[in-house]
């Protein structure tokens, strides 16, 4: 029996069906609508998909495709692994969460998430607080919002995600370039654009 794997939620009038290299070998992403919102899903045989690197990338790529179709489409992203037993269960969640989904769509409309990690060499003697201050001065006036993602390694000086309006991408890229120039001894990992996972606060239970 086939279940529904959910990538994200969009305004119903922006929901479309498209071909994709989707999670678990699926080839089509399509909408399941409830009134003014729609979930974009693909079919899957299991309710507990294994998080492989390949499928995690497919999940992100599908969300990026959704965001980039016809200019910019706003999607409230789901984390990897959200599966519903059937269409009815999913529609129940869309019905119950309709207001929260629409509020989130409004909050992130026209924006993308960009990630920044700054990594030191093992033996560096850089002033970490100074680096963080420089980065904050450069980026936080351009970004609409920012969150800290935790320093999971001793080598990490900074690990943050930024919510940036499409129109400010150029200015943000330039600021990143200045940071790279200021600290050539550090590694700067600049990633994205992603759907704004870190800036929506919706938890839904599958099934």
């Amino acid at each position, binding site marked *: 029996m086939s279940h529904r794997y959910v990538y994200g939620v969009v305004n119903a009038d922006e929901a479309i069906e498209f071909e994709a290299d989707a999670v678990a070998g699926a080839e089509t992403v399509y909408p399941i609508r409830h009134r003014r919102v729609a979930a974009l899903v693909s079919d899957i045989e299991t309710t507990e998909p294994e998080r492989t690197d390949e499928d995690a990338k497919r999940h992100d790529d599908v969300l990026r495709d959704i965001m980039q179709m016809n200019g910019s489409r706003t999607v409230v992203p789901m984390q990897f692994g959200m599966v519903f037993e059937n269409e009815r269960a999913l529609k129940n969640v869309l019905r119950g969460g309709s207001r929260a989904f629409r509020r989130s769509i409004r909050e992130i409309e026209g924006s993308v998430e960009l990630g920044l*990690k700054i*990594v030191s060499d093992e033996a560096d003697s850089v002033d970490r607080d100074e680096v963080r201050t420089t980065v904050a001065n450069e980026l936080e006036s351009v970004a609409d919002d920012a969150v800290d993602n935790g320093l*999971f*390694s001793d*080598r*990490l000086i900074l690990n943050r995600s930024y919510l940036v309006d499409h129109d400010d991408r150029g200015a943000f890229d330039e600021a990143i370039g200045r940071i790279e120039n200021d600290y050539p001894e550090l*590694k700067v*990992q600049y990633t994205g654009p992603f759907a704004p996972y870190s800036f929506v606060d919706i938890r839904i239970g599958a099934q």
Partner: protein
Amino acid sequence: MFVLDDLLVRPFVSIVDALHMLALNELYDVDAIEAELKENQLLYELDERSEAEYRQRKEELEAELALAREIHEEFASGRIEVKS
């Protein structure tokens, strides 16, 4: 805090029991293993670790994480008892 709380609510837990539990928590530290998984991926993305090294370490850490979670679940359910 862990030891104090534990002794307050379970008066029959000895200091040795509590130390055993702390040692097990240290050995099966889910947060530390999850952090190392993320660091492994970061080092691979920065080209400081080859794909083969990355995949091997990831496999090892995922096995450690599954075991650590299982141990914590068993602890929580009371199916594992610490004996001194």
